[in-house]
């Protein structure tokens, strides 16, 4: 992943909702191939809106979203804040859904689903129904579903916000492992300074209402990162810097 080209760029993107709320204004953001970028900001700062615009689930009122290759936008995986699984289908069917919608070959789909489930540690739960799973396992299933199409770009909208800290740390570690193995690009939306520093190469701090980029900070600590990194002085230092940027971003909005 050395030659860094922007896989997607947002240029001067603005979003005004029908209610008149201005969620985003003048948002410029480039995300490079293979990067792990976090969008960090308080709730209501438009970071989820930005992510939905990248996914094509929402249309920008102003500005443009440019892709490196045309048709690239088709290769997206999206993980929502809630697991968003179909309760009437077992885990394997939930994960197979994107392939089924694309009319993929049945046998190949099964193999892809089995492989992806094994990757996220759910190999033994293929036949389980969502209600039988814990919160963390549901989120793993949700991540597996996003990965099963082998997307170039993985978009994650505060996926671990509802989980307890122990589960969240475990999933953070597993997500980094997945990212390193698969070498995908990840845009990760969060309101947690600690989570964003732990995971990301780059943190984009956003201002609230209207959302735009306040600071673009790089976290240069090497991967693989583990629990030793989580307790290091380096990590604490980054967290301090990012926290300061975040409070400045919020202060600027208040002023």
């Amino acid at each position, binding site marked *: 992943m050395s030659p860094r080209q922007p896989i997607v760029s947002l240029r001067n993107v603005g979003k005004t909702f029908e209610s008149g709320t201005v969620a985003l204004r003048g948002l410029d953001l480039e995300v490079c191939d293979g990067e792990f970028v976090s969008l960090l900001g308080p709730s209501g700062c438009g970071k989820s809106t930005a992510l*939905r615009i990248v*996914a094509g689930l929402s249309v920008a009122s102003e500005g443009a979203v440019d892709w490196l290759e045309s048709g690239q936008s088709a290769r997206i995986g*999206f993980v*929502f804040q809630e697991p*968003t699984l*179909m309760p*009437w289908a077992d885990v394997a069917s939930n994960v197979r859904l*994107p392939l089924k*919608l694309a009319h993929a070959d049945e046998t190949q789909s099964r193999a892809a689903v089995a492989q992806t489930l094994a990757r996220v540690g759910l190999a033994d739960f293929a036949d389980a129904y969502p209600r039988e799973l814990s919160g963390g396992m549901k989120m793993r299933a949700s991540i597996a579903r996003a990965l099963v199409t082998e997307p170039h770009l993985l978009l994650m909208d505060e996926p671990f916000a509802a989980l307890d800290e122990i589960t969240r740390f475990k999933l953070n570690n597993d997500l980094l492992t997945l990212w390193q193995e698969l070498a995908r690009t990840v845009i990760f939306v969060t309101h947690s300074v600690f989570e964003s520093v732990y995971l990301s190469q780059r943190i984009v701090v956003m201002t609230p209402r209207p959302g735009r980029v306040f600071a673009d900070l790089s976290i240069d600590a090497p991967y693989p990162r583990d629990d030793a990194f989580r307790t290091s002085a380096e990590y604490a230092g980054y967290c301090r810097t990012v926290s300061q940027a975040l409070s400045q971003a919020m202060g600027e909005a208040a002023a």
Partner: protein
Amino acid sequence: MNERALRIALPVFVLAIVLSLWQAVVDGFGIPPYVLPAPGLVFLTLISDGALLWHSLLVTLFTTFEGFLLAAIGGIGLAILFSQSRLIEYSLYPYAVILQVTPIVAIAPLLLIYLPQPLAVLACAWIVAFFPVLANTTLGLSSVDHNLIALFALYKASRWQLLWNLKLPAALPQMLAGLRIAGGLSLIGAVVAEIAAGSAGAGSGLAYRIAESGYRLNIPRMFAALLLLALAGVAIFFALSALSHLALRRWHESAVKREL
């Protein structure tokens, strides 16, 4: 005694008390059967008139079943149509409501003028039964998790895929609740129409037997027919509840056993 046994034993116990009281009152006061038949006599009538009543029961049940089937197809079909197009929904929904709120007893005589009798009875069964299916299915189809809809949009699902793989399964619990109500209502619709038709002369369903026995002061047969209608209603309810449970037991909260 456990909960389950109690739920069966207690109603049976109440029934036994009520029936013995009834029998005692009729015997004790010497009430003639054309005023109030004793439960024993009703039971005997059920056996002696068995062939006739059984035939009538089958006629009524068949109409009910047809009405229910048409209500299910019509209700679910309309709900799907409404979910596909707002314009169709806005155009037709008010009339579905009007059809529902107008008492069926008032519509039945009119239908009997314009339609041959079996068709009129069927139409009544359909009119009362289709609305709960329509209303419940519409609710189900329109309350699908919006994130799942977004997910389907992300993977460029077609309209058909969205309907078949997401909206219909998501609406299944509400749809089944609607069908459960429709089962009982189509029996009511069939009975109402038969009663209305009965006063016009011809018919062979259970409700017609009730009307006819009334004219002839054959009160024991009225009770026997009524008993059969009640049993038919209960049977329909349990059959549809069982169907609903079978369809939902793997995933829906309503069918999942919990400790608390």
